[in-house]
Structure formats: C-alpha cells, structure tokens
C-alpha cells in the first residue's frame, strides 16, 4: 500500500483548530471538575447533614455510568432545560464537568483524609473557624499531597475528551477523521492522531513521575 503523509501538512490549519479545541475542553473540564469535586468532597468530610449523603450518592451514581451515556444525556437535556438550541460545546462541557467532578471528588477526599487531624485541631485551637482551618491549613496541604494524582487524572481526562466524537464536536480526533474521510487517507490520519496523543500523554506522564519523585523526598 502507498502511504502519503503530505495530507497532514496540507490540512494543518484544521488539525490545529482541533487540537486547540481538545486542550480548551480539557482545561475547562479540569477547572470545573476540581471546583465541583472539592465542594462534593468537603460536604462529605464535614458531614453536613443530608448534603453529605446527596454528595455520596452523586459520586457513586456518576461513577457507575459510561461517559458516552452522560454526554448523550446532557446533549439532550441542556437544550431542553434552556428552552433553546445550545451548541454542542456547552452541553459537552457540562457533561464533562459533572462526570469528572465525581472522580475528582474521590481523589480530593482521599487527599484531605491524608492530612493529619492534628492539623485541623491545631488550627481550631488558635481560634480559626472550621472554614478558615480548611481553607488555610488543611486544603493547601491536601492539594500538595495529591498533585501527582490530580495530574494523572488530567491526562486521563485529556484522553477522554476524544469521546466528544459521538456528538461530532470538532476536537482533534474529529478533525483528523474529517480529513481522513474527505481525502481517503484513513490509515495516515488515524496513525497520526495516535502518535500525537501518545507523545502528549507519554511526555506528561514522565513529568508526573518526575514530580512524584521530587515530592517523595
């Protein structure tokens, strides 16, 4: 068979737009997921009545569902709730934030639990309120301890964004697929997509390992 990789530079603009979309979606989903995930984790740690149970149910519920199903759900629900057509990006972003928050919340909860309870007691003893103690003493230590795991989760999220394929949002994979079908270069384009994802994820995971080694010292 004859491979012709010139199809890649010929479509570099479209592919570049795609990779920007992939990174944008990953970035916003990480920020939204960590914020919502922290709230869920704090509700459970502080044992807020009722809300703690709701948070636990939320986490278990979302962790039992396939991401694709959640994407379909929000793709269908968001326009219905807003009462008007909504672009795919918005509904997909909502899906990712809601879904990832469940996973982030478990990581953050483990991180907070790894901070010694003496820290909280000491903070309370010098007159801090519970929210202050969490904000200034416990959470900074917890986030430091869980940085490597949060980053690993970010790499997984980066890979997961490729699932927007099912609603046709133009991320990197969909852009590659558009070129592949239009120019009849499936082999070249999918191999290229695999290499790009691999290089990004492998490099990032090496970075995480480096960081872990430094933290362990």
């Amino acid at each position, binding site marked *: *068979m004859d491979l012709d990789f010139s199809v890649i530079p010929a479509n570099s603009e479209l592919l570049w737009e795609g990779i920007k979309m992939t990174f944008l979606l990953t970035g916003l989903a990480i920020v939204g997921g960590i914020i919502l995930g922290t709230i869920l984790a704090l509700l459970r740690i502080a044992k807020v009545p009722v809300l703690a149970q709701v948070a636990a149910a939320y986490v278990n*519920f979302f*962790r*039992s*569902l*396939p*991401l*694709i*199903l959640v994407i*379909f*759900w929000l793709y*269908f*629900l968001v326009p*219905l*709730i807003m*009462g008007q057509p909504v672009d795919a990006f918005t509904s997909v972003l909502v899906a990712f934030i809601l879904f990832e928050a469940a996973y982030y919340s478990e990581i953050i909860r483990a991180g907070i639990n790894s901070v010694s309870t003496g820290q909280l007691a000491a903070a309370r003893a010098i007159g801090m309120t519970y929210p202050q103690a969490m904000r200034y003493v416990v959470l900074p230590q917890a986030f430091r301890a869980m940085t490597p795991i949060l980053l690993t989760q970010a790499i997984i999220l980066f*890979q*997961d964004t*490729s*699932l927007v*394929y*099912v609603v046709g949002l133009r991320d990197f*994979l969909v852009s590659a*697929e558009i070129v*592949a079908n239009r120019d009849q270069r*499936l*082999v070249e384009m*999918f*191999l290229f*997509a*695999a290499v790009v*994802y*691999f290089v990004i*994820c*492998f490099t990032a*995971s090496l970075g995480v390992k480096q960081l872990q080694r430094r933290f362990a010292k």
Partner: protein
Amino acid sequence: MNYNWDWGILFRDPYAGWILDGLGWTLVISLLAWVIAFTLGSILGVFRTTSSPVLRAIGTCYVELFRNIPILVQLFLWYFVFPELLPDDWGRWVKRDMPAPALTTAIVALGLYTASRVCEQVRSGIEAVGVGQRQAGRAIGMTEPQVYRYILLPNAYRIIIPPLTSEFLTIFKQSSLALTIGVVELTAMTRQIEEYTFQGFEAFTAATIVYSLVTFTVMMLMRILDKRTALPGTFSHGAT
C-alpha cells in the same frame, strides 16, 4: 421545560426488546474483553516483576504504549488501520469475512487496552506480597515459575480483588465505545430509541438504571468475594 412524557414506551414493542438486546451485547463485549484483559494482563504483570530484564522491558513498553493512546483512537486503529496494514487476503478477512467484524474488533481492542491496566494491578499485587515470600520460595528449591504459580500469584490476586473489580466495571462502561464502530449495544440502543421516538428522557433513564444496577450488583458480589478470600492479617480481612 416542554416535554411529552411517555414512560410506557419502555415497555412497548419493539423498544423493550431493544433494551434487552442492547444489554445482552454490552455483557458479551464486557465479559469476553475481560477474559482477554485478565489473561494478558496477568502475563504482563508477571513479566514486569520477573528477574529477566527483557521480559520486564516488554511489559513496560506494552503498558506505556497502550495507556497513552485514547481507547477510542485504539479502536479506530484496530478497525480502520490494522486491516490495511495486513497482506490483502488477511485484511479482507479481518474487515469482512471474520465473524461479526465490528463486535470482534471492539472486544479485542477493549481487551488489549484493559490488559495494560490489569497488568499494573497485578504488578502492584505481586509487589505487595513482598520479596520475603519470593526469597523463601526460592530458598526451599522452587523454580521462578513455581514461585509465581504457587506463592506470588495466588496471594496477589487475593489482595487486588477491589482494584480488579473496578477495572472490570471500567470495561463494562467502556463497552459503550463499541457504538462508534456500529455495534448496537445498550447505549446505542437507547440512542436509537431517542431518535425513533423523541422520548430521550425515558430511553436514557432506562440505560442509566440498567448500568447502575449492574454496577451495584457486581460491587456487592465482589465485596462478598473479597471478604471470603481476604488474606488473614490484612486490613480487608474482617474489617470494614
């Protein structure tokens, strides 16, 4: 919100049958892919902990390669690219003449991908058993394969039942990716019901309930198994 509710749709012909068929395919994909993932993952996990540098390198390369490429991209590679790279006759067989090409490809792709994750669990399980056991086995004259067969693996599996359970549940959820190459499993079936009837709420609710029920059932069964098989003197034994 402006929506015409019709929960009866889920129990009417042909939609009720579609959901059951979908669940059937989802289970077929998950279970067969799990067989591949568990077998290959165990072999690779042993590779990564043996005394042979070559085997260890093979295991490491496999894990790094398979876990740094999104599973959806891997699925496309197996489905669209792999047959093109084979000699013509073989390629045609994989694409068309092999039984259920899309289903088989989905099972193999998911299995090979998850093998890299199972490998890491098996490796950490073997490491958790500790070098003392390995040395003791060798000291009483066992060969390295015997040490794995009779000491390391039986202990390791009992330690890693919880993470293996979540790996299986990951396969179960990720079997939905098969819909991208045209396998009509549970998620695809409910999407199809939505497109035919516009009753998306009911259809997706059905899928949601089925996925959650299966997940919670598996978790409960495995919790029982974990307690029954826990190693004496470890935290999972009796506690929690």
